[in-house]
């Protein structure tokens, strides 16, 4: 990433992949000259919207005005730690709008060389689920993502979708994201399992019927593989179905 500064233009045009965008946003927090350049290039790119005027249907105005009356505003910056589209990280975060979904890979994309290639090839899509999880457990998620030993692991899910996880050995915890998987069916849910030499041990059940979600897991030390099965809502004590995904934790 020696020429990381050169990404300022692509960043201002939203032309980076989620992972690269997250990595560059991280760079912005440390590089004042890029931060200033991005501010100006964004301002410039926004002028390209001038040429796109199109009168929206009148109902849009009514709908928007009705919706804002039901919508609570966020307090001014800094008082709430996790805003949609802002990285849950300390310091300088106002100038670091991030894809929250990609935050999990920030550490890797910006840090460890071998993993960053893998990370760039992935698109983490289920932003909404990630945001929900981050709101609920932002501090711990943040800690895992920011851990210096955080590592990204990923595998496809049978039938479509991707399971991505960021593990921190030192914190003995991880963030697991399931994205784009087929819905497990009514009354069923994806369940996560830590697989090591002994019997699989549950690490949590995703929301019923959801094909995408993010979950904070603990007790990851010694885990060889993260397995995923589809179980009745609420989960099972032991897997009752074959694995639909298995993510090896190679060290």
């Amino acid at each position, binding site marked *: 990433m020696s020429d990381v500064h050169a990404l300022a*233009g692509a960043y201002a045009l939203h032309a980076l992949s989620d992972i690269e965008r997250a990595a560059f946003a991280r760079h912005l927090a440390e590089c004042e000259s890029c931060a200033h350049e991005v501010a100006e290039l964004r*301002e410039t790119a926004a002028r390209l919207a001038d040429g796109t005027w199109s009168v929206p249907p009148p109902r849009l105005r009514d709908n928007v005005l009705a*919706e804002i009356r039901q919508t609570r505003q966020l307090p001014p910056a800094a008082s709430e730690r996790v805003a949609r589209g802002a990285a849950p990280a300390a310091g300088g975060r106002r100038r670091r709008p991030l894809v929250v979904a990609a935050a999990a890979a920030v550490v890797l994309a910006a840090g460890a060389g071998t993993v960053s290639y893998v990370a760039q090839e992935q698109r983490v899509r289920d932003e909404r689920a990630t945001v929900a999880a981050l709101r609920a457990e932002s501090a711990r998620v943040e800690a895992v993502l920011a851990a210096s030993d955080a590592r990204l692991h990923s595998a496809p899910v049978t039938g479509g979708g991707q399971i991505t996880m960021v593990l921190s050995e030192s914190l003995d915890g991880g963030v697991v994201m399931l994205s784009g998987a087929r819905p497990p069916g009514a009354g069923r849910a994806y369940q996560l399992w830590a697989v090591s030499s002994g019997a699989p041990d549950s690490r949590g059940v995703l929301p019923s019927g959801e094909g995408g979600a993010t979950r904070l897991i603990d007790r990851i030390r010694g885990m060889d593989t993260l397995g995923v099965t589809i179980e009745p809502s609420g989960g099972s004590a032991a897997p009752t179905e074959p694995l639909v995904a298995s993510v090896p934790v190679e060290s």
Partner: protein
Amino acid sequence: MGAQMIRERLAFMSDGANEGPRRADHLSAAPAPPADATAEANELLRAVARGDEAAFTRLYDLVAPRVYGLARRVLRDPAQAEEVAQEVLVEVWRTAGRFDPARGSATAWVFTIAHRRAVDRVRSEQAGAERARRLAATQGETPYDEVVDQATTRLEQQQVRRCVQTLTGLQREAITLAYYGGYTYREVAELLGTALPTIKTRMRDGLIRLRDCLGVEVAA
């Protein structure tokens, strides 16, 4: 998709989409947005951050046609554009307190959110081939409302268009595909059959040239 096809489409994207028939010219006396529109939007957004609904309504009127128009340009689908525009405008209300005037203008802040949302939507909902098809299908089609509205923004638009014309061909293609087409720079490199580092550089130096031509400045 060959580079030649892309170039043909670009001819449309860079100046065809909203230029429309010249029959709008009789409206050219329509006033351009006031010169202090930027300052006005900044004021309005600050008021919105304090929960001022009346200010939001005025801000809506100021930015909604571009928010919707931009979403429509990127998505090439009026229904999706309307959904995205609604999300963006509600987001403006919700996060107005996060606007930092030291980092740019209120309008740029709004259009940055709008562009981001439109691009995210187009990437998640329309596969590359589908996007290319839509791009081709809407070629030359300019809805009536765009023709009329364009008259009210002629001056600003002309400045942008004039500056876009000062770019090199590759700068213009790269920026246009990314901004209006929602393509990543990797996709742009592939579409144009050009090396990745070159595209990355052209996006940056092209935007820098645009910035200087438009006289855009953000206090350091």
